[in-house]
């Protein structure tokens, strides 16, 4: 068991930096894309910006498609309370989420 451990940790020590380096170098295509804008952002433009600014601050943001309106209603309140979002921002984000699927 000890030797497996040692092998694993040595492997990690070597592999992690190598992999990291390889990935950084591998990503050479400089074509930068703007975040995928949906046609529906037009319906709640301010909400879309606020969603982009707020909802990826603590964790990766999930696609507006991943939940239905009723679920987003609950989650938006949860996040408003947890993240201390202003009520107004929460309302606009909610309108954006409703309009985008």
């Amino acid at each position: 068991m000890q030797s497996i451990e040692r092998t694993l940790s040595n492997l990690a020590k070597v592999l992690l930096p190598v992999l990291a380096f390889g990935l950084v170098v591998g990503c050479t295509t400089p074509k930068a894309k703007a975040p995928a804008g949906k046609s529906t952002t037009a319906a709640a433009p301010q909400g879309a910006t606020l969603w982009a600014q707020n909802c990826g601050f603590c964790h990766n943001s999930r696609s507006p498609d991943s939940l239905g309106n009723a679920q987003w209603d609950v989650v938006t309140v949860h996040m408003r309370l947890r993240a201390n979002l202003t009520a107004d921002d929460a309302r606009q984000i909610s309108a954006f989420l409703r309009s985008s699927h």
Partner: protein
Amino acid sequence: MNPRSLTAVSACVLSLATGGALLAQSADDKDTITVPKREFQQLLEEHRQMMQEMKALKAQIGKTATLEKSVADNDTAIEDLEKQIKETKQIAKDAAQGSTKFHLGGYGSATYTAQDNGGANGFAATFNPIFLWKINDKVFFEGEAEFELGGTETSTALEMAHISYIANDYLTVSAGKFLNPANYFVERQHMAWVNKLPDKPLAVYDGLMPETEVGFQARGAVPVGPFKIGYAAYVANAPQLKTDLSSPADLGSLEYNNFDNVGRHISTGGRVGIHLLPEFEIGYGAQYADVAPVGYGHSVKSFLQSVDASYVRDSIALKGVLNAKVQWVWSHIDRFDYDPAGGLGDGFDRAMKRNGGYAQIAYRPTHCDMAFVKNVEFVFRYDLIQQANTPVGVDERRSTVGLDYWIGPSTVVKTAYEFDHQSGANASRHNTLLIQLATGF
């Protein structure tokens, strides 16, 4: 071509055809034209044929127009249908989880840990379902259970359960068991799918500040000019000072799970956070409580503080998202004589001071075109806890490199290697390899 322009064109063609023949005549006689009978009949025949062709063409055009119209009608019908399908889908989605205002969320994780120097080794798993219920526009319930399997034991806990009343745009009050809002990492970062490394930083988690509180809380957010200020303030059961001589290393630390409120003390605390920019927030949190043991004549004050800063920037220039976080906590407990009889030797009649925290930086090349690369995140964290001058007798510092692969926005495979350094009377150093699969739902 529409029928009217076709008539005009065919009239032109006709006049051109006849025109050539007539031109010679018109030079001789301006009023009457003499055409040989055969030629006239031929022209008449040609004219008849043209009229027939034109009729056929007109009919054809009519048909095409009807066809075009029906295609357009079909398009609108398809659009309508799509709209209806979308609406139906939405209704189905909304109805799928019962009465519209309930959401089951949460997270789970499986972790493999291998430490050197004879340290811990093995698998552990956690499952934390979260029940969210929007009772109406003003009332919200949040409850979380925690199931943890480590070694041979499964532990179950009520991580939190509190009910909130949204009084107005700026104030929400809640009561119950809630995550400690003064502790940034605990309230906003510790969940397995949010935390970018498989384990939690020293000092801030399971360390110098409580993870949960049982009591009342008021919180909210106020926009002030270009800034957004969030606040939380609470009163809760105070922690309990550990004074049990049978575990000397614990003397002078705090038991946070003081649900019975032994000592009947109340702690007050909170946090204020300011978003100076949408991508930058700083915060200060603190908790104050008297933690004197029952029957002790004086007060023994504990004062816990935390500062935090968080910067998250999605940058085209950097081709990805840069995420930096720091948090530092201090714990001060007034002087107290833990061993009045002196059986444990010197050093147990004193104030307890500890501190520690972490700094973490992560980068994910989300704007890279290679699908595989944009799911990879590099993480580096430095964390420490300083308590060598307490009965614990250890200062610990760790440097951790991590590499994550995001399978989805909330599903991740994390690998990390932790370089450990310890000093103090009870130091025992362990480097650690960690592999974790985590998902939030």
